[in-house]
């Protein structure tokens, strides 16, 4: 899976996620990538999320929408909301991660897998990371 979230000069948020899955997956198996609310969600004034991981668990938790709702309704930070949602994924037996941008432009990488290919860029420059302890 790959994905991106962004905030533009006007404060608009957007998210995109594409493909993913496991080798030799059953034909017709659909993971979380195309499911709005599981892997992808964006709402101005709240946050934008793209997820990657064991899709069935992300679908069952509704990870992306859960994160945005916890930010919107419970007033949690994007990190708190992401950790809660991924905690639910872990409780069910899944792993993976999310990238999130908040309405104020703050961002978070949150994952419970060993690593996640990831990066961020803004006017101050670009940074990338791969491993969990990067």
């Amino acid at each position, binding site marked *: *899976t*790959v*994905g*991106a*979230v*962004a*905030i*533009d*000069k006007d404060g*608009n948020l*957007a*998210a*995109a*996620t*594409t*493909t993913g*899955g*496991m*080798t*030799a*997956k*059953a*034909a*017709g198996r*659909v993971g979380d990538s*195309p*499911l*709005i609310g599981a892997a*992808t*969600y*964006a*709402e101005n*004034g709240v946050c*934008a999320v*793209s997820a*990657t*991981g*064991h899709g069935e668990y992300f679908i069952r938790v509704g990870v992306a929408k859960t994160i945005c709702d916890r930010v919107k309704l419970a007033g949690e930070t994007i990190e708190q909301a992401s950790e809660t949602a991924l905690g639910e994924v872990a409780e069910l037996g899944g*792993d*993976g*991660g999310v990238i*999130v941008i908040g309405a*104020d*432009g703050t961002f978070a*990488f949150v994952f419970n*897998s*060993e*690593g*996640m*290919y*990831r*990066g*961020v*860029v*803004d*006017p101050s420059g*670009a940074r*990338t990371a*791969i*491993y969990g302890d990067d």
Partner: protein
Amino acid sequence: MPEWRLVIHGGAGVITRDGMSPEMEAAYTAALETALEAGADVLRSGGSALDAVEAAVIPMEDDPLFNAGYGAVMTASQEHELDASIMDGRERNAGAVAGVKRVRNPVKAARAVMERSEHVMFSGDGADTFAEGQGLDMVDNSYFYTERRQNALERVLKNRQRTAEDRHG
């Protein structure tokens, strides 16, 4: 608050220093930087967040290092089935495609569903047909083939067992 910002991921999983050569690490880093720059170029020039996320995803769909588009994992039926979704936070408009086999860049198809139909998701042959009708680049399913993914498929089918490394987000 930053003037603009873009964040990307290229998948999560069993990614450790022990399992990564310096050459592979450099290749992934370069690919991530390419994707970041593609999206940053949009935002730097005043473009929308929506255009930026699409621009950032396309290079990763075109790079066989990632499990998306060209180089995506194969199904047990030895085909490639691709999915994508996109969402615009302004009006919570969204589009998605599932199980497409001929759209070169599924994220473009997802955006076409969002902007050029009254629907949110198309799947299977209907999604391919819709994308073709919208003038998107179409390819034979074999376009997505890479030797690396073929070898992984053969190993899994032979052993009838997936390792953690066979899950790619």
